[in-house]
């Protein structure tokens, strides 16, 4: 017999090479045109996988926010009275142009955000197109959407979105607002402004009337000026619970309508009778999709005590085959953390977990890239419910494992949090799945699956994960007076 030869199982690089041009400098999108900021200030956005600068972006000041709200207010007069079928026409065309420019958008998103190209290509951008397409069809059917109300638009919507799904969040905000006859001022996240600005180009291409959508880039201060602007009638925010509470306070003395999609610490519950192969994939998808920078991430793994060793054994085996690195490589499973700030925040939580006595398990054999913000998928065993890493949202590729003995205990542990965004339940018994699904306080419950999204399906949280829904007819209610 020949001695077994060592086989190199590593993958050859498979870079996505679609060329995307990025302008050196981006203005603000106000009144249908790209304009220089009156603030005369700019900031830089980098590729988190290389730490190289991608572009300079305008930082909107007070005068810029004023101009954007003014443009949206003016546009509202005609847009709110535009024939529904005509409004639908614009949204259908936006959806089509997104599909046509899908590859470009996917690459640009991966560059600006750091998430793997396979996600931007297969999840983010297709969902963006679907969201516009779905809402296009609502324009002339709003009287059937929300029982008990006469559908009327609200006015100018201030929409502030996060960096974890930059273009998808823009779509979730803009599409229903426009379908209902509102106009928009959107503030993308500071670290990921480029795809929203590329969407602005598409809005120009389809001749969307000027001012119907305005995009002001900037950091927290720009967002604060926007949501507190007296010319705004509706505020929609996706981001941290901390900022959400500040916004709620700022809006308390006004008549502004408010919806908030905030943080989570979602349970992923594995029963002993779970279909184990699928469950392991569900755990991986739940916490390492988008590097765990997902508000509904399944970051608290609750495993039935009798199978915890089996689950950890299979999971650590699977973790070894996760490829961490270049987001633009088509084989990459886990890309870059979005910013140095976030990287440091996640690392602080990892240190905290170790300090509080949990067992850190990292099963990553390769080397992390030299440049860029990367963290190997991380698992903590021996976690107590009171540990910081079991209670606070880490927003990174860090999974904490807890155990339970009975379905009642699983529900109690699942609900032992101020959050209530999502939950995963893995079992082969339908009756148990339904019972636990009914018991968990969460806006989205995934039975034997995780992290599924769709334009027709409402998304949003219970408790401190916010209120209001996005998607489906429940989502439309947020944009109708």
């Amino acid at each position, binding site marked *: 017999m020949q001695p077994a030869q060592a086989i190199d199982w590593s993958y050859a690089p498979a870079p996505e090479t679609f060329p995307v041009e990025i302008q050196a400098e981006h203005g603000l999108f106000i009144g249908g045109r790209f304009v220089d900021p009156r603030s005369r200030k700019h900031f830089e956005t980098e590729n988190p996988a290389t730490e190289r600068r991608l572009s300079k972006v305008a930082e909107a000041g007070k005068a810029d926010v004023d101009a954007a709200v003014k443009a949206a207010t003016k546009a509202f007069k005609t847009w709110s009275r535009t024939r529904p079928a005509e409004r639908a026409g614009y949204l259908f065309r936006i959806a089509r142009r997104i599909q046509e420019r899908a590859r470009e958008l996917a690459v640009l998103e991966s560059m600006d955000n750091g998430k793997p190209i396979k996600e931007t290509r297969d999840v983010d951008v297709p969902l963006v197109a679907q969201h516009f397409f779905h809402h296009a069809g609502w324009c002339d059917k709003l009287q059937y959407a929300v*029982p008990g109300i006469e559908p009327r638009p609200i006015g100018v919507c201030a929409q502030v979105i996060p960096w974890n799904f930059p273009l998808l969040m823009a779509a979730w905000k803009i599409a229903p607002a426009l379908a209902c006859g509102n106009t928009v001022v959107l503030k993308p996240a500071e670290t990921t402004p480029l795809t929203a600005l590329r969407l602005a180009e598409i809005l120009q291409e389809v001749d969307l009337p000027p001012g119907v959508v305005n995009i002001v880039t900037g950091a927290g201060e720009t967002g604060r000026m926007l949501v507190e602007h007296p010319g705004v009638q509706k505020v929609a925010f996706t981001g941290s619970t901390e900022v959400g*509470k500040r916004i*709620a306070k700022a*809006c308390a003395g006004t008549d502004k309508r408010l919806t908030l999609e905030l943080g989570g610490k979602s349970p992923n519950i594995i029963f002993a009778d779970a279909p184990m192969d699928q469950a392991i994939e569900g755990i991986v998808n739940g916490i390492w999709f988008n590097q765990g920078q997902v508000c509904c991430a399944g970051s608290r793994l609750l495993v039935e005590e009798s199978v915890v060793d089996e689950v950890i054994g299979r999971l650590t085996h699977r973790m070894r085959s996760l490829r961490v690195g270049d987001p633009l490589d088509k084989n990459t499973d886990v890309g870059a953390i979005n910013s140095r700030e976030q990287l440091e925040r996640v690392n602080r939580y990892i240190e905290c977990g170790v300090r509080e006595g949990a067992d850190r398990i990292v099963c990553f054999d390769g080397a992390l890239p030299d440049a860029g913000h990367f963290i190997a998928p991380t698992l903590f065993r021996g976690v107590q419910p009171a540990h910081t890493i079991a209670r606070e949202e880490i927003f990174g590729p860090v999974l904490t494992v807890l155990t339970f003995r009975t379905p009642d205990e699983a529900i109690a542990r699942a609900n032992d949090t101020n959050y209530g965004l999502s939950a995963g339940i893995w079992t082969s018994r339908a009756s148990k799945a339904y019972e636990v699904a009914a018991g968990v306080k*969460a*806006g989205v419950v995934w039975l034997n699956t995780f992290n599924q999204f769709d334009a027709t*399906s409402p998304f949003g949280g219970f408790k401190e994960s916010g209120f209001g829904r996005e998607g*489906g007819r429940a989502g439309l209610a947020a944009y109708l007076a």
Partner: protein
Amino acid sequence: MPATVTKTWKLFIGGAFPRTESGRTIKAVAGGTVHHLCKASRKDLRDAVESARAAQVKWAASTAYLRGQVLHRLAEMMQARHGEFVDAIRATARITPRKARDEVDAAIEHVVCFAGWTDKIAIVLGSQNPVAGPFYTFSGIEPTGVVAVLAPDASPLLGALALACPALAAGNAVVLVASERHPIPALVLAEAFATSDLPGGVCNVLTGDHGELAPAMAGHRDIDAIVAAASGKRATALKEGVAENMKRVQVVDPDSDFTDARWRSPAVFRGVTECKTVWMPAMA
């Protein structure tokens, strides 16, 4: 001549009628009689929330059919007290007997309407979601939890029920703070609650100073939603409660016409229910 026994007005918490722990009272003069009502304290509010929390899970878990029957029983108990409600409304409000009777009739009809809503909320507001993938997905409607209600002064009986009924029908437990100016109808209502089959704690009734109780409600971390007739600074104080624990706060115009059909429409469930979406693989 037989002695007349006058009623001692108390709070209604956890199915019992306790006095306020604070010992404070509000004086209300009605038809030559002096009534001493309880001026509920923050502690009374906390006790009421505790009772509501304890009762809510079971109330929500009971079938919609059963909740409907219980609410209908409440309407039956109200009908039996029709005259007493008319007197209670007229005790402190300058209003014709005719108008008072109309309000009681409307209030009873309102409760019957919501007795019929319990098993239709999910039908009307829920959905099956045709997602673009191999999944079966539906959205159901669940109660938000413990709901605090501040009743309006205009139509003190109908207004209180217009704000409380959607929450009760959907499976929430309620802490109802009676109209500040005309609290007696809500106290008679508490007696109807007590003699209907509504489980203790599902609907609690307090009387007191809204200016004192509103901020306490806003700051209470175990209240999940507020439905309040309020305006101005009081409305702002209530809405600041959102920042406390993301409680859902719905402020309504105290001078609303509660006989309007919109108060019986499915739109009223929005502030006191949560949409839960469940996904499962179509082929497992």
